[in-house]
């Protein structure tokens, strides 16, 4: 009987927990149309010893009256070189980096909840008018030794992606040795390897990418008569 009471008490306790704590994202969040979400991010990895990667993030703002975009920097990452453009007009937009507590004083109901200790990149643009929208591109450089690092002779990029479409471009001179999440692979015009991830599900993907440095290209063999190039040493 005591055991029954204990189990009953546990059930009551569980029922009293906030719904979000028990179930994760709300039904509203889970039932959004993924295919119509318009955020996408492209990451450009710098050499791994810098732990830095440039990225741009495209987003369409269509809420009437909204005239700024808040990009909350992920904990553990530091943002630098922020810039933004209105892609519809091709115009540069003004950008500032502020702390969450300063933002709280000027916050608007449309803004997402920002932790007071968070670093936030704020992009300013003319407020969206009723029935219109604006396509934004926010660019910045993140430094995050936890997400992006060297391990032996490999680079490791280990980061979760929540957007439906994400891309990662390896640094010049590196070739792909692993990708935990299925990606389309292509070569950029300057010879870097690009991975494109599409996640149609309303969840995050834990992307783990590894790459190795290519050996320097061998010097071209001597071409008789041209005087260019040296004969290679036998190995």
């Amino acid at each position: 009987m005591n055991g029954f009471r204990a189990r009953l008490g546990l059930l009551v306790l569980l029922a009293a927990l906030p719904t979000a704590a028990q179930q994760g994202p709300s039904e509203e969040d889970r039932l959004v149309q993924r295919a119509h979400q318009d955020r996408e991010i492209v990451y450009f990895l710098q050499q791994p010893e810098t732990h830095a990667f440039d990225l741009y993030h495209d987003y369409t703002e269509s809420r009437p009256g909204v005239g700024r975009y808040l990009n909350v920097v992920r904990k553990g990452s530091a943002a630098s070189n922020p810039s933004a453009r209105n892609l519809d007009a091709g115009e540069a937009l003004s950008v500032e980096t502020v702390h969450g507590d300063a933002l709280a004083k000027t916050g608007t109901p449309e803004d997402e909840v920002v932790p007071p200790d968070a670093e936030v990149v704020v992009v300013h643009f003319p407020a969206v008018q009723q029935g219109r929208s604006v396509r934004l591109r926010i660019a910045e450089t993140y430094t995050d030794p936890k997400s992006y690092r060297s391990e032996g002779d490999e680079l490791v990029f280990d980061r979760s992606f929540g957007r439906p479409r994400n891309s990662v471009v390896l640094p010049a001179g590196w070739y792909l040795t692993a990708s935990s999440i299925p990606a389309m692979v292509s070569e950029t015009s300057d010879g870097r390897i690009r991975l494109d991830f599409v996640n149609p599900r309303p969840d995050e993907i834990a992307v783990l990418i590894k790459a190795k440095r290519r050996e320097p290209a061998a010097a071209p063999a001597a071409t008789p008569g041209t005087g260019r190039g040296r004969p290679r040493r036998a190995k």
Partner: protein
Amino acid sequence: MRLLSLLRPLRLALLSLGLCLLAACGRPPRAVTTAASVPPPAAARGAAPREADEYTRYELLDPESARFHILYEVTATEPGATAFFNPIRKGSLASDESVRDQATAQSLPFEVVSGAQARASGLPDADLDTNYIRIHLPRQVPAEGGVRLLIEKTYQDAKSYFREGADRIVFSRPLGIRRNAIVLPLGYELIGCNVPSQVLTEPDGRIAVSFMHTGPEPAPLVLKARRLGK
């Protein structure tokens, strides 16, 4: 008269029960299907699948040879079947075939047969323009079970696997199997893959590309790789 009308439902119920029993006795149990029996046409079988759990691993061999080694895992699932037919894709020249029972690791006998021979010996809807590997199963496929096979073969197919320029190779092949892996030759890096795929490194250093395809059509795979400079 009134008594007869009262008994009529009882007579009908008994008649129905008798007919059911008769039908059950007349139906041949599936377990007695013999080695010589020929499976009925697909339409009559309700197009029940003959196989399940397919997975294919392609190991690209020397690019000059246009050859690739295939390891095909498949489970024969047609109850009572004693043979399994694996088509040889048109345009591919097959060699080095072998078949193994995955449960016992036993090698299984097989022969290459024409479409007509396949039709006559267990695959009534065989394509007459296709050759098949006819595998003799080590036991009848059990009801609610299967015989797990590993079929290995090497294809030579210059249309699917070819060089592009001095240092690049292309593997371009529509793949109908749902689970696949393609292993590059040693010393090649992946530079293109149009089907979302995992990328992994094999213990021997070869790069492997693996994907699961869920669409209704074969995956139109185009994979490109480049020789790493040394």
